[in-house]
């Protein structure tokens, strides 16, 4: 009920949050207006050429640095940036022919280089604005007869007051290049016809929302999508819950004083965790196959072989998937919970015992909130991991198409289907569209759960 209440409040406050946007923007741009009205000639100089105002103010080092950035930006755009930016929109105009050594445009590379050019423009705009603000700050200092901040002082603040900027500069660049660029690339691929026969050297084109239209409108496609999505949600919730509570239970059990040889007991699940996942999965596939040991004993006992992962084994295969996933994932939760429980405040339990609280009550009121508080982000990552758990059904029950599903089986998750569509069938753009949908679903769920969780709202509770 509390969760529902929280959701209601979240949506209730949404209109107010939207209404506040113009005010916040006006506040943000008040400074810009001031610079435009009050800025003197040197500020104007910095507006025309980056660093010029600073040079006129005899801030040589800073001025030269900004000027260098300006020159580098122009040189980049003269040499390649402008072509890259245009290439982002055209995705190439000249098809290559490797048979005759004719080098054509590579649409995919052009798309990446175009994104990079846009990122560089954004970075340039940010530096340009900082350059103007700096020139205006110097003007204000001189107007009030203060000494402007010297380059040495400014560098000094980067190692002291503004150290966070220094420390974060490289990671931010790394995130832009290695994280944002590929994500944006993947998102943009969803709006192109990349895939099937349209792969370089053939030229790729923008197709707008066509791929999303295909997913939702194709007769065979939409029912498969919704069927798989429904199972995927159920799988993610069930597997996360099983892994989490079983791991926690195991940790609590092995935390009991009465358990002898804890180190040995803890080693067993770690062994399961240490073995590569796909080896475990292939092992389980063999165990449950017709020729595997389980069926062998069933037959020895006079029974008939059971197709645990066979053609009609929808729910038994799903159940085996949950169990195998638990086998692989519970140890990590157990280790995590063991670590957290070792820091639990024993006074709380002592007080609860004095007050006559039962073991169950202690678990519900002390242990669970404490562990949940500490592990909500992990829980979310486990949920996302399970939602996108490719290996389980790929290894347990791959290469199977089931009636009523388009190029998928009834145990496939969206990620498996995505693989079938994009890698097996080379439909990269459709694959990107589906992964974009998966991305939206998982990020909305994760954000909502995290924002509404005590880990976010009551950060100080257990400090």
């Amino acid at each position, binding site marked *: 009920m509390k969760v529902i209440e929280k959701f209601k409040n979240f949506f209730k406050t949404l209109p107010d949050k939207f209404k506040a946007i113009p005010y916040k923007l006006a506040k943000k741009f008040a400074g810009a207006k001031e*610079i*435009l*009205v009050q*800025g*003197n*000639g040197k*500020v*104007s*100089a910095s*507006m*025309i050429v980056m660093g010029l105002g600073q040079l006129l103010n005899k801030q040589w080092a800073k001025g030269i640095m900004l000027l260098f950035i300006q020159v580098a*930006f*122009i040189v980049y*755009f*003269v040499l390649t*940036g*402008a*072509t890259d*930016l*245009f290439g982002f929109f*055209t995705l190439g*105009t*000249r*098809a290559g022919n*490797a*048979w*005759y*050594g*004719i*080098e054509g445009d*590579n649409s995919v590379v052009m798309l990446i280089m175009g994104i990079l050019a846009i990122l560089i423009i954004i970075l340039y705009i940010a530096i*340009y604005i900082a350059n103007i603000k700096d020139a205006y700050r110097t003007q204000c200092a001189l107007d009030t007869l203060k000494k402007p901040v010297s380059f040495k002082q400014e560098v000094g603040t980067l190692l002291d007051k503004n150290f966070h900027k220094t420390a974060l500069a490289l990671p931010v660049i790394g995130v832009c290049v290695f994280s944002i660029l590929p994500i944006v690339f993947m998102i943009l691929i969803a709006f192109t016809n990349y895939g*099937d*026969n*349209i*792969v*370089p*050297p*053939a030229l790729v084109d923008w197709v707008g929302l066509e791929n999303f239209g295909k997913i939702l409108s*194709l007769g065979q496609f939409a029912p498969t999508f919704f069927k798989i999505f429904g199972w995927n949600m159920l799988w993610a919730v069930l597997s996360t819950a099983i892994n989490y509570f079983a791991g926690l239970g195991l940790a609590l059990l092995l935390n009991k004083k009465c358990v002898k040889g804890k180190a040995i007991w803890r080693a067993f699940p770690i062994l399961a965790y240490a073995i590569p996942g796909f080896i475990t999965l292939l092992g389980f596939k063999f165990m449950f*196959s*017709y*020729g595997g040991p389980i069926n062998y004993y069933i037959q020895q006992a006079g029974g008939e*072989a059971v*197709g645990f992962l*066979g*053609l009609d084994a929808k729910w038994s295969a799903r159940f085996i998937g949950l169990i195998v996933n638990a086998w692989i994932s519970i140890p990590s939760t157990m280790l995590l919970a063991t670590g957290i429980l070792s820091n639990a405040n024993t006074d709380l339990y002592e007080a609860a015992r004095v007050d006559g609280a039962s073991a169950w009550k202690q678990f519900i009121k002390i242990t669970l909130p404490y562990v949940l508080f500490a592990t909500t982000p992990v829980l979310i990552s486990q949920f996302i991991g399970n939602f996108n758990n490719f290996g389980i059904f790929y290894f347990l029950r791959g*290469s*199977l*198409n*089931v*009636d009523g599903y*388009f*190029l998928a089986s009834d145990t496939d998750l969206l990620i498996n289907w995505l693989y079938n*569509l994009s890698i*097996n*069938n*080379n*439909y990269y753009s*459709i694959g990107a569209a589906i992964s974009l949908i998966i991305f939206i679903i998982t990020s909305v769920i994760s954000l909502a759960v995290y924002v509404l969780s005590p880990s976010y709202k009551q950060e100080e509770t257990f400090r």
Partner: protein
Amino acid sequence: MKKTLPALIAHIAVILAVIIVMGTLGLIAAGVASEGSEKFTDEIERNVTLRILENDTAKEQGYLKELLDAFNAEYAEYGIKAVDANMDQFTDLETGGPYGYGPDVLYQANDAIMKYVDGTRKHILPLPVEQLDCYEHIGKNAWDAYKVTIENQDFICGVPVNIQQPLLFYRKDLLPANWETEWDDDKNGVPDMIEYWTDLYRYSQTIRAQSASNYGYMKSLNDGYFASGYFLSYGGYVFGGEERNDTSDVGFSKNDGYLGAKIIRQLASVMNLECTEDTITKNSYSRMAQGAYFATMTTPDVYTMFIKEMVNAGFTEEYARENLIMTDVPKLPVSGDLEDESQGFKDMTVMGGINGYAISSYTKAPNAALAFVNFATSYKMINRRAELLGISPARGDSAEALGGLNANINNNLTAGTIYVMPSVRALGQVWTPLQTYCAILADDSLTGKNVYVTDEALKKGLENVDNQIYAAIHTLG
């Protein structure tokens, strides 16, 4: 605002001007078409290194080293050095080739090679095959596996080396003692169970009746590559058209293809449920060695695996080689019923492939690469390859010289009983629907569900397979 705004606008205008002018110039420059040239000029490049991608068996058995040494010695005056590309045998040229990675010469199956020239792709070069020594000695069917038609012009993009076809593997020592009197009706000295599927089926029934743990013919029936032969034998086909690459016409269910489904159902009845999955394929080496299986079907390249397992099971290698026999697949009954021989027999058509050499479009030394291919497909090297690796040469003169099964396989290709895997990328979409259906048929037979008993049901099931394959290829295309 008047004071600084013009400066801001001026800056933006200059930057925009730079971007627009340079971008437009870039577009104009891109519009100027550059001229290409023919790559094969008969002038062998000097002092170059050729990266050769070969299969793992060729490396393991030492053939690749022998080939490279011989070639390097032959072309020493040109300073050409052929080296092992040191890449996975299934390396996808498409992913690295355009960016300067990948081999110069590659040896792969025809379907793998020809996917590089499917659609708009041109990752391997069309070859002047008439210049090669092997040209006259390789049959048309083999060359056709490497033929691609672009804008009404035919190109050959690979050189056939090795013909792959499924063969029947059986244990000679497990034949009944009285086979010459009881199992050789035509008195041709060949056991009937090796010659005809009907007899192999009957013999499997006999073995099953005698022992609960022993089987006659055993094979994972869900393996589309091997199972497709049953459909192909009765007029079914993968893709239609003269070149067998018209993906708009998927035809497993065409003609009497459904009779193949009937055969699969019947064969399943002498096996167990393991035939619906890949357990039998995995276990066949050890189970054949133990004598639990009398026969199976697979490709000749795994012959040594069977021998190894028999040796592990306590037989001498000599005994193993004498008793583990590879032979052509049996003949199928014209009736499509393993219990009805009244209409006679027909040769079984099997899905096969042709491995060969191709040259990457991104090689810096196409003429040297062509010289390498010419050398590697010479009579001497192909014979050596066959000797070391046990392959069946595509060269007719080599096959004839080697005799035995090699000649048979070469003749099968000419006679059309080897259905060469269509050299189109869409072939990848065939396997999952096909193997699902074959597994359903086997399951239906063994579990007594009996959904696919009538011809209509078998036909409908197979039509569904065709539809699924068509949808996989064309729905999003």
